[in-house]
């Protein structure tokens, strides 16, 4: 198999020694079928064991290895070296504080996921002995696409709104909330309303559509957010007559 020499410019940040992130360059022979993650692992194994990055499944489903490659947020396990030129720039995800090298602080992301109550909410639970909640393939299709999110946070790295408003709940979390709102088994629409309709919720989205462009699983969070705007507006109209305006 053919080898090709590729130069990797990797953003390094070692909080104990670097005042701010700096680029470090590695040159490495890459196999034709390598992905960028393979190259990073080869660098860590054989050139510089101090390089830190997250990865696990290397098949595009665990969501660990999102980084910027030549400026674009991608899963490095699905970004083939052969599709890039002789120099490849690898940086940590934008819009997140950098913990070290290519590792970013995702705590805020996971907190946002939790904030939208991403679980089935029902008034009355069906007993397990009665079996499943019936759900037709058509009802499943309603939300299936939005359930495909792997929490890789690429959409957060791409979102221009988040660059200015870090408190924005963000594409993945809103898509997830919308997924549950559309699920025929769920009755939690009203419970999620407060988070979705707040200032940092769906209305903060100004439709850059960039989340959907970078989503590796075609979840299309921009569609979810803007459908959720409609849901939120309808929910608002529904509770409006009951509001106490005094």
């Amino acid at each position: 198999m053919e080898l090709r020499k590729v130069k990797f410019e990797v953003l390094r940040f070692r909080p104990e020694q670097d005042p701010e992130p700096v680029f470090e360059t590695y040159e490495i022979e890459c196999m034709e079928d390598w992905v960028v993650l393979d190259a990073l692992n080869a660098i860590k194994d054989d050139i510089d064991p101090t390089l830190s990055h997250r990865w696990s499944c290397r098949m595009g489903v665990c969501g660990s290895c999102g980084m910027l490659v030549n400026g674009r947020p991608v899963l490095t396990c699905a970004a083939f070296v052969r599709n890039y030129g002789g120099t490849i720039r690898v940086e940590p995800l934008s819009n997140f504080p950098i913990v070290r090298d290519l590792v970013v602080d995702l705590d805020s992301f996971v907190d946002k996921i939790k904030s939208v109550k991403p679980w089935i909410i029902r008034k009355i639970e069906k007993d397990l002995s009665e079996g499943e909640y019936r759900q037709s393939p058509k009802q499943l299709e309603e939300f299936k696409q939005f359930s495909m999110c792997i929490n890789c946070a690429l959409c957060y790295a791409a979102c221009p709104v988040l660059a200015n408003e870090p408190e924005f709940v963000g594409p993945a979390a809103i898509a997830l909330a919308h997924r549950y709102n559309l699920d025929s088994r769920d009755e939690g629409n009203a419970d999620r309303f407060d988070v979705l309709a707040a200032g940092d919720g769906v209305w903060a989205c100004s439709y850059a559509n960039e989340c959907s462009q970078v989503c590796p699983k075609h979840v299309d969070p921009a569609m979810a957010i803007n459908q959720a705007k409609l849901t939120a507006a309808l929910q608002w109209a529904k509770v409006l007559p009951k509001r106490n305006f005094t």
Partner: protein
Amino acid sequence: MSGHAAAEAKTRTAPARAPSGFPLGFYRYRNYVLFAATSFFMALGCIGLLAGLHALSLGEGAWNAWLATLAEPHWLVLSTLVLLFTLYFAIRFFWVGRKIAVGRIGPIPGPPLPMPALGVLPIGGIVTAWLILLAILGGLL
């Protein structure tokens, strides 16, 4: 903060970096910035129309004067620009936004919709558009 362990003793981080190429270094972000900028022109257009409405309330003379003003060359250019930007807004909104409605009345389209035709606007185009606009506004005032 709940669910995960308390974040005492966190380590020093480097601040979050803006998305690469935002706002004008990457064509998709440029398209988005242009999309956002259309609001300015649409507002101008709306003000113009409100002025017309106001003129109408003042009587025939004022109305005719307003019509005459609209016919002046720099007003024509401005109106054309408002039209272009409104069109751009409308095309992008409905191009991207058709996904919103479709989910309700038909099958959900799979991958995100690309906008190839709009992807070619160079940064120079935006700068030129702004310069022209500034020149017109300067002329007006």
